[in-house]
C-alpha cells in the first residue's frame, strides 16, 4: 500500500527519469561505454594529479625505455613518460571532442531549424550549401579549414566544429520539417505564439533526444579528427602532448618501439569506441520506438 502511494505521489518528471535510468542500466554495453567515457573525462580533468611525471619532463637515462615499474608504459625517444603523455593527451582530445561538437550544435541547430521552419528560399540556399559540404568527407573538410585557420588546438577545434556542422544542419532541418507539422504547432499559433516561441519552445525541446544522440556520435569523430589534425601538424603543437602528436613521433621508431604507437592508439580507439557505444545506448533508451 505504501509503495503504491509513493509511486503515485512521485512527480512525473522523476518517474520518467527513473524509467530512463532503469532502461539504461539494462544495457551493459552502454553502461561500459559511459564508465570509459567518464574515465577519460576524469583523466583529462585531473591530469596534473594523475600523471606520474610532467608530460614534457625528459629522462635521458631512459630513452625508448621498455615498460617498467618506473615508467609503466615506457618512455619515448626523448625519455618522456608515455603514460603521463597519454593522460595529458586526453585533455586535447576531450577539449576538441566536446567543444567542437558544442560549436557544431550552436552553429548547425539554429540554421537547420530556420531553414526547416520557414522553408522557401532560405531553405533552398541552406539545403544546397549543406549538400555541397556533405559531399566532402568530414576529415577533408576539417583539414581544409584548419589549414586556412593555422595550426593550434583552438583552430583545430574550430575547424572540426565547422566540419561537423553540415550533417547536424541536415538533421535539425529534417526534424524541424517533421515537427512543424505536429498539431501542437498550429495550436500554439492559435494561442498567439510568435515564430521564436514556436521554434525554440515548442520544436527544439522535441528534438533534444535526437540532438543528444547526434552529439554523442559527433564527439568521437571530433576526437579522432583532432588526432589526425595533430598528426598532420595542424592541431596541437609539440611539445604539448596529444595522442595525434604522439603517433606522429612514434612513426620514426616503429621498428624499434612499436609500443609508442600502440599505446596512444589504444587510448584513441578506446575513447572513440566508448562514445559510440554510449551514443547507441542513448539512442536506444531515448527513442520511444525501441522501447521494450
Amino acid at each position, binding site marked *: 500500500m505504501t509503495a503504491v502511494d509513493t509511486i503515485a505521489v512521485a*512527480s*512525473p*518528471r522523476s518517474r*520518467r527519469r527513473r524509467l530512463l535510468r532503469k532502461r539504461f542500466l539494462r544495457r551493459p554495453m552502454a553502461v561500459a561505454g559511459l564508465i570509459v567515457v567518464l574515465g577519460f573525462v576524469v583523466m583529462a580533468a585531473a591530469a596534473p594529479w594523475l600523471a606520474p611525471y610532467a608530460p614534457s619532463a625528459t629522462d635521458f637515462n631512459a630513452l625508448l625505455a621498455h615498460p617498467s615499474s618506473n615508467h609503466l608504459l615506457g618512455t619515448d625517444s626523448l625519455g618522456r613518460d608515455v603514460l603521463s603523455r597519454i593522460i595529458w593527451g586526453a585533455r586535447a582530445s576531450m577539449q576538441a571532442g566536446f567543444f567542437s561538437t558544442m560549436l557544431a550544435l550552436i552553429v548547425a541547430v539554429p540554421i537547420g531549424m530556420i531553414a526547416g521552419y520557414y522553408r522557401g528560399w532560405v531553405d533552398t540556399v541552406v539545403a544546397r550549401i549543406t549538400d555541397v559540404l556533405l559531399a566532402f568527407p568530414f576529415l577533408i573538410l576539417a583539414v581544409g579549414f584548419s589549414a586556412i585557420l593555422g595550426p593550434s588546438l583552438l583552430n583545430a577545434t574550430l575547424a572540426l566544429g565547422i566540419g561537423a556542422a553540415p550533417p547536424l544542419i541536415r538533421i535539425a532541418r529534417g526534424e524541424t520539417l517533421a515537427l512543424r507539422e*505536429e*498539431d*501542437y504547432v*498550429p*495550436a*500554439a*499559433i*492559435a*494561442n*498567439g*505564439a*510568435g515564430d521564436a*516561441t514556436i521554434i525554440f*519552445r*515548442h520544436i527544439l*525541446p*522535441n528534438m*533534444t533526444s535526437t540532438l543528444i544522440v547526434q552529439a554523442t556520435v559527433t564527439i568521437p569523430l571530433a576526437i579522432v579528427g583532432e588526432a589526425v589534425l595533430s598528426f598532420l601538424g595542424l592541431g596541437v603543437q609539440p611539445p604539448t602532448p596529444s595522442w595525434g602528436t604522439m603517433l606522429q613521433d612514434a612513426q620514426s621508431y616503429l621498428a624499434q618501439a612499436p609500443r609508442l604507437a600502440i599505446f596512444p592508439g589504444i587510448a584513441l580507439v578506446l575513447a572513440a569506441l566508448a562514445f559510440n557505444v554510449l551514443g547507441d545506448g542513448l539512442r536506444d533508451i531515448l527513442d520511444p520506438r525501441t522501447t521494450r
Partner: protein
Amino acid sequence: MPQPLLDVADLSVRFDTDDGMIHAVDKMSFTLGAGEVLGIVGESGCGKSVTCMSLVKLLPETAVIEGRALFEGRDLLAMSSRDLRRVRGRQISFVFQEPMTSLNPVFTVGRQIGEVLQRHLGLSRVEARARSIELLDLVRIPAADRRLDEYPHQLSGGMRQRVMIAMALACDPKVLVADEPTTALDVTIQAGILDLMRDIRERLGTAIILITHNLGVVADIADRVLVMYAGRKAEESPVDDLFAHPQHPYTLGLLGAIPRPYEGDDTRRRLQEIPGRVPSLRELPQACAFAERCRRATELCRTEIPELHEVRPAHRVACFHPGENAAV
C-alpha cells in the same frame, strides 16, 4: 439591434495551389453576438474550419482571404500580424479536434497553460501556476494541482481536451472557436465536454462558435445554426426552428442521416444518405452548388446562384425551392 461581437461580411477564401485556385469559402457572411453559441454544420471540406481559421489568419500562406470581419469594430482581416498575435488566444481562442496531439508532448500541462498566461497577461510563474489551477478546476479536472505537473501522455483524451479548453480560456477570451471538439472522443466523454462548454458560456459569457458535422451536438448546445455547403451558406436559423422547420434540401438530407434509436414497432427506418458527392471546389458554379445532388433541382437552380432570403423570422435559406417536406 446591438452591435454584434463579430460581424463577418463577404468572406472569401481561396487557396492558390499548383492545380489552380481552390475556392474554399465563397462570400460568407455571419454575425456572432456576445455570449451566443453559433453552430456551423456541414460535411467535411465544406469550409467550416477554413472560415473560422481565416478570421485570425491561421491558414497557410497560399490562402487568399477577402472580405471583412469586424471584431468589436476592428477589421481582423486588415490587422497586422503583430496585432493579430495579440488577438489569438487572448480575444479569440481555438480548441481543435485532436486533443491527443495538440498538446506538446515534452512539457507538463501546467507549463503549457502557463506559457499562454505569461505571454498574454504577463503573469509571473507563480501567478500563472495559481491561475492554471483555477482553470483546471473550471474545466472540472479533479486534483488540479497534481495534474498540472503531469505530461500530456499521462492524461486521457477527454482530460486533454479539457486541458485544451482550459488553455483556450486562460485569458478570458470573448470568442471560443471549438473545431470539432468532441469528434475524437468517446460518446460518454463528448457529453461531458459539451456540458462543460455550456457551463462556460453561462459562467463566463464567452461566445462560442462550434464547428461540427454532428447535428446532434448542435441541437444540444447551439442557439443558432449555420449550415454550410461547398463554401457557401445554405441555411441559417435559430436552432429550434431549424429542427422544427428545416427548409434547405441539404439540411433535410443531413437530418435524414442522423441515426435514431429504433422507434415503435413498425418498419425500421433506413438511414438516408445524400446521393452524389460534394462538388469540386476548383471552380464554383454560377448555380446552386447543391443542384447536382438535389431532387428538387430545376433549370433555374443550374443557371443561377440562389440568394439568401428569409422564410421565417430569423430563418434564412439559400434555395429556390425551400420547404419542410422531404418528398417535394
